């Protein structure tokens, strides 16, 4: 999911062509397209309607209160006026007022919003106050009074009245948006070079807000048409000028309802509702364009859900909890496997049946007490892998192949992908917990720290008394070095380091066998980072859990891991004992990675780095994904996806590397 969002973000940042494509995609959605068609239809009617009208809308005739017929498609009024003609004329007035009021109030919103957001300070305070006052004032009663004071006000008067009350919301949204844009680099740069304020606003800020302005504009059109209808219905507009609201006014005044003349009031209301729906649907499209998370909501959800149910097996009783064996120090020769991941494949399902593999054919084992480090650039699939192990991946991600086997302390094997919902809940946290990257985002802002630890305990140990649970929470906080009196603190009241410690306390709550740590120290400064890592290692030695540590910080990883796995383009390219890896990385990518990081200890070496950028997973290069950037690549590399080759190391252990230079049958003769 995270990776998918990044992809989307990249897509919309990639430039005008990509964003135009996003627009087209939004237009292609059936609901949005329906909205656009409805809107265009009414716009056309508003323009040419009066010429199409078969009668003069005010002309009286003998056919009083006649039901719809061939002569009068929508029937007639009490005075025999043709309602169809009134509807056609009314479309123009209603649309004119709607669009006119939207133009004026959007102009006001943009003016106030941009100025307030850009100028800041006292001007912002004042403008925001005025906007907020107008936002809270109930609009309709105010418009009623204003309209009442403008006797027989025509369309322009009504536009004026609606605009006065309608601009505040847009101004507020645009102000917030401008504030955040103002701090962006490109605006700062323009200010630093001394460009004129008006130029910066017009050139740098305004174009970035077009989507929001459009949404606000369409929303105001709907609002203005509804308000105009309301005012006209109350008789506060010129009742001799035909609009949809005026038709309803005359219907109400003439008791059309009591006489059963449904054709008199049904068409006008339907037209307003239909137009409003059309505009709202267009706005949803814009919303989804602005907010990628909404766009994601529907895609692939059903398919991914089906995938899970297919895997479901017969329900099994919750196994009795076994006592944990005492912590044994990990040795490199250990064969006590706790977690096996076999040929795991995670796909992101796309919109038109496409799928993007984020994790591909990944196999590794984790042994009891081991620290397994997973390294890779962003987008290498390492976080997706972490989530997939606990089945926390969200649609559109789906596990399409592979197996995950967990071995309980009592020796029983658990097929993680085969667990049903309840079994999965029991498995999570009890056996395997996760420490997330950003504690600020991973802690619930409205719950106290203590409660966020306690609820995990409560869910898994329902028989534990409240007193014991409270004791356990305090114990956990002390374990990670947080004062017990912080138990009632909210996340925002803690410092960054404290929050990360609290996360670890949550992770330890049930004394799990495995803790997955997804970049647990990335957001912290170096000193705090070191404290946290030392705390983790200390706790590991004390409590004896196994760790899967994910990071792009290779020097840190080499220092604390027993085994290192390097991922590239969703695949494992190297798997080695940390010592072997540091001394002699075997995959060209690992060599490049090691050369681009300074180590905290050990001999100094020259930093080189890797030219090029990570592969596009939607359209990966053929063969080995690394070959476009690889200094050792040869012809076969762009044709064959290399398997992992088992290689002897100087220490007598083995290292696996996925590179064709180790394939004697391919590389000999063609390489180097």
């Amino acid at each position: 999911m995270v990776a998918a969002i990044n992809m989307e973000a990249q897509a919309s940042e990639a430039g005008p062509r990509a964003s135009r494509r996003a627009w087209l995609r939004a237009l292609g959605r059936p609901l949005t397209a329906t909205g656009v068609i409805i809107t265009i239809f009414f716009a056309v009617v508003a323009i040419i309607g009066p010429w199409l009208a078969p009668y003069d809308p005010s002309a009286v005739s003998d056919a009083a209160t006649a039901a719809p017929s061939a002569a009068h498609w929508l029937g007639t009024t009490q005075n025999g006026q043709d309602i169809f003609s009134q509807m056609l004329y009314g479309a123009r007035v209603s649309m004119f007022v709607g669009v006119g009021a939207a133009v004026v109030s959007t102009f006001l919103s943009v003016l106030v919003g941009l100025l307030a957001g850009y100028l800041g300070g006292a001007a912002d305070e004042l403008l925001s106050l005025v906007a907020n006052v107008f936002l809270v004032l109930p609009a309709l009663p105010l418009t009623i009074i204003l309209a009442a004071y403008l006797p027989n006000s025509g369309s322009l008067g009504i536009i004026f009245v609606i605009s006065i009350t309608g601009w505040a919301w847009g101004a507020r949204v645009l102000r917030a948006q401008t504030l955040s844009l103002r701090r962006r680099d490109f605006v700062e740069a323009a200010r630093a070079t001394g460009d004129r304020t008006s130029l910066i606003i017009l050139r740098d800020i305004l174009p970035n807000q077009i989507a929001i302005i459009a949404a606000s504009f369409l929303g105001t059109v709907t609002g203005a048409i509804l308000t105009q209808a309301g005012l006209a219905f109350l008789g506060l507009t010129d009742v001799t000028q035909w609009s949809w609201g005026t038709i309803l006014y005359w219907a109400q005044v003439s008791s059309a309802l009591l006489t059963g003349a449904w054709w008199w009031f049904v068409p006008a209301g339907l037209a307003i509702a239909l137009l409003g729906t059309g505009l709202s649907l267009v706005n949803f499209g814009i919303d989804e364009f602005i907010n990628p998370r909404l766009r994601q909501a529907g895609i692939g959800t059903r398919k991914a859900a089906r995938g899970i149910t297919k895997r479901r097996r017969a329900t099994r009783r919750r196994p009795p909890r076994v006592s944990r064996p005492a912590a044994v120090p990990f040795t490199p020769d250990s064969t006590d496997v706790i977690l096996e991941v076999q040929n795991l494949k995670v796909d992101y399902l796309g919109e038109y049946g496409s799928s993007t593999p984020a994790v591909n054919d990944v196999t590794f084992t984790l042994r009891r007490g081991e620290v397994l480090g997973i390294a890779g650039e962003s987008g290498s699939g390492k976080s997706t892998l972490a989530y997939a192990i606990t089945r926390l991946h969200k649609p559109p991600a789906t596990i399409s192949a592979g197996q995950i086997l967990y071995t309980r302390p009592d020796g029983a094997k658990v097929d993680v992908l085969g667990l049903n919902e309840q079994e999965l809940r029991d498995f999570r946290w009890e056996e395997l917990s996760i420490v997330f990257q950003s504690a600020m985002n991973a802690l619930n802002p409205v719950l106290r720290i203590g409660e966020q630890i306690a609820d995990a305990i409560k869910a898994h140990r329902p028989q534990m008394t409240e007193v014991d649970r409270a004791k356990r929470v305090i114990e956990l906080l002390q374990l990670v070095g947080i004062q017990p009196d912080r138990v009632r603190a909210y996340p925002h009241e803690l410092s960054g380091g404290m929050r990360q410690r609290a996360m670890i306390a949550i992770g330890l709550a049930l004394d799990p066998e495995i803790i997955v740590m997804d970049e647990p120290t990335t957001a912290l400064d170096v000193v705090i980072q070191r404290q946290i890592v030392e705390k983790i290692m200390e706790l590991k030695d004390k409590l004896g859990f196994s760790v899967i540590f994910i990071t792009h910080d290779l020097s840190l990883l080499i220092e604390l891991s027993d085994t290192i796995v390097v991922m590239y383009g969703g695949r494992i390219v190297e798997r080695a004992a940390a010592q072997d890896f540091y001394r002699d990385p075997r995959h060209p990518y690992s060599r490049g990675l090691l050369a681009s990081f300074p180590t905290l200890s050990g001999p100094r070496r020259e930093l080189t780095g890797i030219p090029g950028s990570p592969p596009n997973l939607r359209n990966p290069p053929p063969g080995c994904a690394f070959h476009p950037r690889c200094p050792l690549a040869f012809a076969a590399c762009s044709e064959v996806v290399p398997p992992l080759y088992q290689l002897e190391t100087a220490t007598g252990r083995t290292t696996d590397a996925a590179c064709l230079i180790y394939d004697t049958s391919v590389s000999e003769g063609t390489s180097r």
Partner: protein
Amino acid sequence: MKSLLRRAFFYLVTAWAAISLNFLIPRIMPGDPAEHLINQFHGRLSPSAVTAMRALFGQSDKSLWQQYLDYWHNVFTGDFGLSYAYYPATVSEVLRTSMWWTLVLITLCTVIAFVLGTGLGVLAGWKRGTWLDSLVPVTTFVSSIPYFWFAIIVVLLFAMTLKWFPISGGYSWDATIGLNWPFISSALYYAVLPAFTIIAASVGGWLIGMRNMMVTTLSEDYVRLAEAKGLPPRRVVFTYAARNAMLPSLSGFAMSLGFVVGGSIVTEVVFNYPGIGTVLFKAAQAADYPLMSAIFLFITVMVLIANLLADVAYTFLDPRTREA
């Protein structure tokens, strides 16, 4: 606490702005509405009523500042002058008899619609990708319908065709207003259709807003952590996702409330409900400016109080606002 005080101060400023606006509007509007109105009564107005009417439009010997002070005095003593639509009743009397109908109806309907819409929105956001997604276009359509037109259709269906409920009014003619069962039961019976209209028309806005917030919140890390912890789904949905998703919904209450109240007022006209909306309609028909102004002020104050209550609820739900 401090943030609440700041909000309360803001509402005081808003109330001051509304009242001053009310004072200013008649004075800056073009034309001579006073003369026009007085002529309409063809000399049936008492001389003091004519003076009051002129004063209302600023046609007075006093300075503008003195007029403004007098105006404030009148606001605080509840003296809004005579109603011309309900002549010779005073504006205060008219307000007093009609306000309870509107207050009870709109308060109940807003609370029910908010709870119902938010609840359905939580469900639709949580079960996204299922049939519940079809609620979105349906509720969009319903919330695009003008309230008063929806009311007309409701009357046509349930009162005229099916005859399940009365067509108009607030209570049966043979009941006497007071705390007696015949009156209360008949008031409830008469309120069903107006209430249904307002709830049905406003529930969609809450639903869509909440659904979108749920979808956004569900991809937050803290919700994923809650799932990783193996918490029961109920706790994940309510304590982690919905609890956070609700906050923007509550702070958007201000704008929505004004909209709902406005819509409900016009709805009353269709049902000829004895509340403020119907009175406002009659006042507008008769160009009864004093009554209209007083109704505007009344509604504004009520909306401000409702907003303040929403702010209190927000502070209660979001610890981050409590300390500042």
